[in-house]
């Protein structure tokens, strides 16, 4: 497809009419969404609307009950657990609300961990981790255990860990939810700024409009359905 003679990139990530239930509760109903390469997309919605479930389905953590999830031209939801795990390790990065770092390990260990799990050499893993820690202004804390970090420092370490493998997509679930306004803003500036420099796609779930305003576009999830406010009505 082209516009004005220029090629328009196809979606990097796509949900096609996915359903997902927890027991009798239907969290997603024919939810559809597509994300282009390099795009920063915010998924908004009230508590319990299904926005985190949608993120987990897009990231291959959950598989939908119906519908399809596509990533980079491949169907994601029909891959085996092992293949999805590998994809999450190599192509995706994650930032959660509370960092989810390993508290017994140092900041450098935590950031190097995804590379070590991906069988990178120890020296190379720590060299690359150090580079990211410097970009996130955490180099002076690299030997500190993550349990000793402030909330903002922990989220910056989580961003370094998410980006260290140079993933195609970073999924962030309420990354500033536990931070005060100013610290949250700094964390979002870093996440968005570094993602743009790297050309990384970001899908961020948030209930905070100020966080969503850092994204290129936002969609709303209500009662498990995705609404694109710039198109109107549920996205199909």
């Amino acid at each position, binding site marked *: 497809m082209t516009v004005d003679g220029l090629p328009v990139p196809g979606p990097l990530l796509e949900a096609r009419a996915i359903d997902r239930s927890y027991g009798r509760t239907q969290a997603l109903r024919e939810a559809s969404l597509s994300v282009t390469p390099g795009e920063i997309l915010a998924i908004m919605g*009230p508590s319990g609307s299904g926005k985190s479930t949608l993120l987990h389905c897009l990231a291959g953590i959950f598989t939908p009950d119906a519908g399809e999830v596509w990533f980079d031209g491949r169907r994601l939801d029909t891959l085996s657990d092992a293949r999805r795990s590998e994809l999450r390790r190599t192509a995706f990065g994650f930032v959660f609300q509370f960092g989810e770092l390993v508290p017994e390990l140092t900041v450098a260990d935590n950031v190097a961990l995804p590379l070590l799990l991906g069988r990178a050499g120890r020296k190379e893993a720590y060299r690359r981790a150090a580079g990211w820690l410097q970009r996130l202004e955490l180099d002076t804390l690299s030997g500190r255990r993550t349990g000793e970090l402030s909330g903002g420092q922990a989220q910056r370490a989580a961003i370094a860990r998410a980006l260290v493998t140079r993933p195609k997509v970073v999924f962030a679930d309420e990354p500033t939810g536990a931070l005060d306004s100013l610290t949250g803003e700094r964390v979002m*500036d870093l996440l968005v700024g570094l993602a743009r420099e790297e050309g990384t796609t970001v899908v961020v779930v948030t209930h905070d*409009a*100020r966080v*969503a*305003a*850092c*994204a290129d576009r*936002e969609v*709303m999830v*209500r009662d498990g359905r995705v*609404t694109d*406010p*710039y198109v*109107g*009505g549920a996205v199909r």
Partner: protein
Amino acid sequence: MTVPLALLGLLDREPSYGYDLKRDYDTYFARGKPLPFGQVYSTLSRLARDGKVTAGQSEPGDGPDRKRYSITTLGKQEVDAWLAEPVAAEPFLQTVLFTKVVLALMLGHDAQRFLDTQRATHMRRMRELSEIKRGGALVDALLADHALFHLDADLRWIDVTTARLGALAETVRRA
């Protein structure tokens, strides 16, 4: 922003020329709406007439002759009183927005769609302001923050109203 009080406040720092007052006003308060020179001098004339500033003798400069303005005791009292008085806690009631929602429900129009469109408009403006913050000086960033927090408050109202639209529709239709 009240221009006479802002100019008085700037003069309370030190005596100043009209040109310098305009430059400082534009730097801190104008935000894309520079103060016309005509307004600066007409305001200073009114302040002088009311005894809040005094104009010095004309002084020759590089350009046309200019006057140095100084604040009077009366002017200082006015600035002090203004600064001590809290700004009214405006309710920022979105009366137009609320009226549209209620009328849409009364007339059987799609109020949800209207709220979604308004939400998108607010978000678009918030993105513009976030961009201003990223590249701007501290003064611009803080002003953008002020606007962002207010737009955020509107959005919360839109979300709460969206969640209660069914109940509001019943109330409106019963009336």
